[in-house]
């Protein structure tokens, strides 16, 4: 037994190439299933949708799937068994990465095999992958994305204004000042945005006959809702600034508000950029709830466009297009803010760190 253990160890000691082969195999398996499937689909066309099913069930696709399944499994097993025995750290890393890539290839290939074997896969594909229906709605999705951005940005602007003011009130020593701020924050954080939109629009705006459009009402309600979350973010940001900063400012004769304005808030603003970003991205997605209010044709945001297109075509492909449209809006936002954050961080490491 001991002899076998020693011999295995000796054998692996010379097997740095095995780790590289594992990595290559895992990468190849994942590449085959992803790129191979994509290439087949594109080469044979996505329109009309029947071609998609034909491609997925074709011999060529079977080859792609089984090859990547086998390759992925092999890489997974080789990597999992071998990585502890690899003689160098890079070899070990290659083996682990190969196993990880192989595992992903196995999951994707297995999923596609399972998917195409479904009894009603043709119905599913007709419902969700009928890209030919999208053509006439492309323009509307662009307008929808624009409206989503407008709703989110206007709501966030209002939210930041309200949030800052309410945060300062919520930080007051005086109960009488704190109480209304807490009530506002707790109410709007504690009830669903869907409820707020319907109550304040159908109840207050329509019920009282206010001269406000659904679009305007949506912006205000989104802003009031965002204000409650933003207030908590600001409050935490202000509290995170060392007490000594306030003391130093007051010792120089500054009033409480001067100290806030010149010493505390500039630092707090920088600190709250990451959580504020998260709030904003959440708000972008929350604008979808205004679908409830019944916006006019040109005012519709992404989800309203997707829903209307679905109802018009009796086809669900626009729902997929809707997801894509949201990503087109959110991914650049995430990217921009990450960059902004990094710049602030590098400029004034002391403050953020």
């Amino acid at each position: 037994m001991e002899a076998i253990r020693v011999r295995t160890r000796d054998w692996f000691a010379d097997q740095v190439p095995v780790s590289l082969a594992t990595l290559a195999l895992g990468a190849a398996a994942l590449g085959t299933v992803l790129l191979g499937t994509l290439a087949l689909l594109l080469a044979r066309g996505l329109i009309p949708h029947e071609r998609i099913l034909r491609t997925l069930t074709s011999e060529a696709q079977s080859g792609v799937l089984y090859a990547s399944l086998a390759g992925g499994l092999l890489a997974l097993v080789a990597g999992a068994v071998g990585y502890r025995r690899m003689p160098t750290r890079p070899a070990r890393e290659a083996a682990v990465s190969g196993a990880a890539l192989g595992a992903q290839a196995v999951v994707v290939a297995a999923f596609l095999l399972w998917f195409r074997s479904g009894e009603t896969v043709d119905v599913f594909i007709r419902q969700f992958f009928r890209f030919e229906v999208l053509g006439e709605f492309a323009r509307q999705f662009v307008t929808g994305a624009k409206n989503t951005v407008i709703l989110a940005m206007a709501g966030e602007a209002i939210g930041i204004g309200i949030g800052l003011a309410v945060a300062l009130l919520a930080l007051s020593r005086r109960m009488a000042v704190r109480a209304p701020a807490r009530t506002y924050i707790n109410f709007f954080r504690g009830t669903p945005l869907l409820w707020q939109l319907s109550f304040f629009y159908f109840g207050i705006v329509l019920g009282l006959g206010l001269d406000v459009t659904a679009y305007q009402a949506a912006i205000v309600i989104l802003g009031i809702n965002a204000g409650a979350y933003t207030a908590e973010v600001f409050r935490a940001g202000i509290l995170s600034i060392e007490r000594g900063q306030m003391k130093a400012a007051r010792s120089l004769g500054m009033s409480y508000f001067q100290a806030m304005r010149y010493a505390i808030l500039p630092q707090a603003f920088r600190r709250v950029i990451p959580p504020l970003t998260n709030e904003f991205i959440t708000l972008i997605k929350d604008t979808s709830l205004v679908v409830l209010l019944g916006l006019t044709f040109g005012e519709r945001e992404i989800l309203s466009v997707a829903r209307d297109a679905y109802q018009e075509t009796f086809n669900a492909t626009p729902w997929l297009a809707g997801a894509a449209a949201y990503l087109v809006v959110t991914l650049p936002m995430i990217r921009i803010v990450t960059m902004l954050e990094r710049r602030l961080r590098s400029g004034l490491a002391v403050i953020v760190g």
Partner: protein
Amino acid sequence: MNHGDSLIRLEAVHKWFGTLHVLKGVDLTVEGGEVLVIIGPSGSGKSTLLQTINLLEEPTEGRVLFEGRDITDVRSNLDEVRTHIGMVFQAFNLFPHMTALRNVTIALRKVLRLSEEEASERAMQELRHVGLEHKADAYPGQLSGGQQQRVAIARSLAMRPKLMLFDEVTSALDPELIQEVLDVMGRLAEEGMTMVVVTHEMGFAREVGTRMIFMDDGVILEEGSPREMFASPRHKRTQSFLSRLL
């Protein structure tokens, strides 16, 4: 200020933090030109006492008089009073988002309402005073602890205070940076600045202090000239405190 009023006068000052009784009836006067050194074990209430002088900590009981005015009276204008009392902290507390120059000018501009040129001129003068005019455009994060503390001193001095409070200003510094800050403080004392200094630097206390008090457990246990107190402390606890330090 009536003739004969002390610069600072504390009368029976008590301070509670919740149930914690930190100052237990402190009476203290500070006259113009004095360098009063406060020593004592940690937790004895030294820093709290110092911060009641400019009412960063409000006394729970008792009065604080500045030039004979009761500044614990709710009707007193504390912001105005504080412009006459400079304070330097253990943790520097510079504003990290402002350059050294801006740290000094901000209160000159916003509190004293000086013009930009006047404020900058006065700030540069004070930075020169602490030997840091060449660091005017540096941010606090780019300065050593000693330099930061000297900027903090310049920031307070620029207000032209009648009194400077120093709260363990060298305790957060690396040993090799302590002296440069003590040098600046020594020079200030020579120039006749009235100072109240909480410190563990016994050398400084002996050389620069004109009067010294020993605090323990929220009360002033002993008071006298630094040299006398170091040579022959009267109280037992003063003795044991000093013997542990020297």
